């Protein structure tokens, strides 16, 4: 498969990229700075860009179309968060969060679908969060930006169905990455208790869900959000 993954420099994005690279897939990745591992794989190409920069994103998709002749899957992993009380959150922060998470996801879905439609096949996996159904205090703008992605996923699933493209989303459980670095341990433990399965998630949990959505046989699965850990 030819798979485009956003936010591959570190964390879940890096783990997903390395997983598919190890399985022999061709992976195209992007992030704002170059990953230090990019040169380890001959089947990996990196684009250094901001996912909400339309001009650069259009150029990247133009190159993908020309150089690869198609695109099988898009994994919209890139995301930023800001843990803060809404009363103390600057508008600039809210704009940045929506720009990367929501607008970036929309832009990549739109451009990927343009390429995928040619082969009447495509798999898009977006990233949402348990912060939406849990309505977590301190994550108002982050959760709102991801709630918008739930809505996008459901609507785009319908708009792209005619082109053979499925659009789904995965909501990773709490995983010990940079995103939750500043959250107190007690708060994280309370959070885990709200899941059906009271443990931190792993990258493998997320990869397993993505692999399910990407399978050829999953062509009847679209517009769904998969909350890991039993949210």
């Amino acid at each position: 498969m030819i798979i485009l993954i956003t936010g591959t420099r570190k964390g879940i994005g890096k783990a997903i990229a390395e997983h598919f690279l190890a399985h022999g897939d061709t992976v195209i990745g992007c992030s704002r700075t170059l990953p230090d591992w990019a040169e380890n794989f001959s089947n990996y190409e990196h684009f250094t860009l901001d996912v909400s920069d339309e001009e650069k994103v259009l150029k990247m998709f133009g190159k993908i179309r020309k150089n690869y002749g198609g695109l099988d899957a898009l994994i919209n992993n890139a995301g930023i968060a800001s843990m803060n009380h809404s009363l103390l959150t600057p508008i600039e922060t809210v704009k940045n969060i929506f720009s990367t998470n929501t607008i970036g996801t929309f832009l990549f879905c739109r451009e990927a679908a343009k390429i995928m439609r040619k082969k009447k096949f495509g798999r898009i996996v977006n990233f949402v969060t348990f912060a939406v159904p849990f309505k977590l205090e301190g994550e108002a703008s982050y959760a709102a930006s991801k709630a918008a992605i739930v809505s996008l996923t459901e609507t785009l699933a319908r708009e792209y169905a005619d082109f053979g493209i499925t659009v789904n989303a995965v909501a990773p459980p709490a995983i010990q990455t940079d995103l939750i670095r500043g959250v107190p341990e007690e708060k994280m433990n309370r959070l885990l208790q709200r899941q059906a399965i009271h443990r931190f998630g792993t990258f493998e949990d997320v990869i397993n869900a993505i692999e399910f959505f990407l399978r050829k046989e999953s062509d009847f699965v679209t517009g769904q959000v998969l909350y890991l850990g039993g949210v």
Partner: protein
Amino acid sequence: MKEINKIILEQIEDYNDFLETKMDTSAGNDTILFGRGGVIDSVDFVTLLLDIEQAVNDEYGTHIAISNSRAMSQKNSPFRTVGTLAEYIKNLLEE
């Protein structure tokens, strides 16, 4: 390089192969793409626009995206006819 309206008309002819009710391009620039008097539905309209976008980008070596908030509007769409779409794309290329 090919003129924009020529590219659009060529793409319509190509797309006609997939349509049961063909689009009649004899009116040239006045050929209606979408809306009253048009023969294609919204999915075909979107698909045709994307084919045109790709053909323009290939011909001119550009990376434009044909998008407009009034795209599906009956009255004010810049994509209503071959002529208005060609004009719209020319402006995009000059930006």
